[in-house]
């Protein structure tokens, strides 16, 4: 029988099966947050189209965005921005400085700083509403 090599599995299956080390986890998160931010751009532009329907339509929409649900979503959006930005800087250091030699330490900084910024933003955003909520209980 003629020699017939078996073609490899598809890249999605290979990605799922292969061991994920810290570098590849960082890359996967970078891709996911990048896709999330791209999707958000479209939502953002769509939201702005209410401007074409006059000031009232726009103000009504802005009121909707001031609801707690949208604040939480905004906070989550901030987490995408923070990770994508910080890891983007890590990639620049890996590519243009000697970051490839200490990329895991850089990643630890990305995660650490990311969590601090995320919690910090949460405090800034929700300090007042939470304080008000407790005040109303008294």
């Amino acid at each position, binding site marked *: *029988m003629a*020699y*017939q*090599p*078996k*073609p*490899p*599995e598809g*890249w999605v299956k*290979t*990605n799922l*099966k*292969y*061991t994920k*080390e*810290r*570098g*590849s986890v960082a*890359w996967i998160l970078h891709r996911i947050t990048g896709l999330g931010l791209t999707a958000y751009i479209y939502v953002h532009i769509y939201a702005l189209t209410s401007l074409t329907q006059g000031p009232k339509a726009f103000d009504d929409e802005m009121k909707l965005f001031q609801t707690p649900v949208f604040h939480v979503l905004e906070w989550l959006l901030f987490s995408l921005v923070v990770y994508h930005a910080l890891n983007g800087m890590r*990639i620049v250091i*890996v*590519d*243009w400085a*000697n*970051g*490839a*030699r200490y*990329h895991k330490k850089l990643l630890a900084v990305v995660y650490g700083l990311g969590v601090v910024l995320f919690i910090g933003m949460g405090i800034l955003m929700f300090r007042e509403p939470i304080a008000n909520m407790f005040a109303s209980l008294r």
Partner: protein
Amino acid sequence: MKVTLRIQRYNPERDSEPYYQEFIVEAGDEKERILDLLLQVKWKYDGTLTFRRSCAHGVCGSDGMRINGKNRLACSTLLRDVNYKKPIVIEPLPSIPIVKDLIVDMSDFYKKYEAVKPYLINNSPPPEHERYQSNEDAEKLFESAKCILCGCCTTSCPSSWSDENYIGPAALLKAYRFVFDTRDEAADERLDVVDTPDGAWRCHTIFNCVEACPKEINITWHISKLKKRLAEREM
């Protein structure tokens, strides 16, 4: 102690799809190499099990395979390096055609390797003695020159999985080895080959190659130096 190996099998003359087969083998201690266990299977239980191995000491690079989900050399991986309490999964290198069992077709890998002209090019007349290179300049090449062409890096790279034209970490590492060689005169020819969307720029610094390299070469660092050189060339 008893250890279970779960080996991916594929016989092109009989099977339409690869399948897994389990073998229970006897291992002396944690320092036993995966290669010895594979040889035990071949010699004692199933002579048809097919895999490459030559020097068996991490020099020839022929027994690259995926062990417990990660590319490694079977001869350089000890039992203590993997979780042997559960069946050890042994598969051929990923994203590359399978010839039989754990043997893969490396033709494409070598084609890409040859594309970067992996040999010294110097058209100047030879000097009376050797082409001199200082110790400092030679040291810049030592790490990249450790490559044994096992293919663990290129077949571990998600960029290679999704782009079959990507030249891959092994070829880029070899490009570095000659581009930064002070005795070589063909740096531009090689840089032209890697300065493409399927060349150095396809490296997304995922570091799978670095994790997989059995010779502990920081391939991503070498690719970053190539990228820098490419950018400097444009300026």
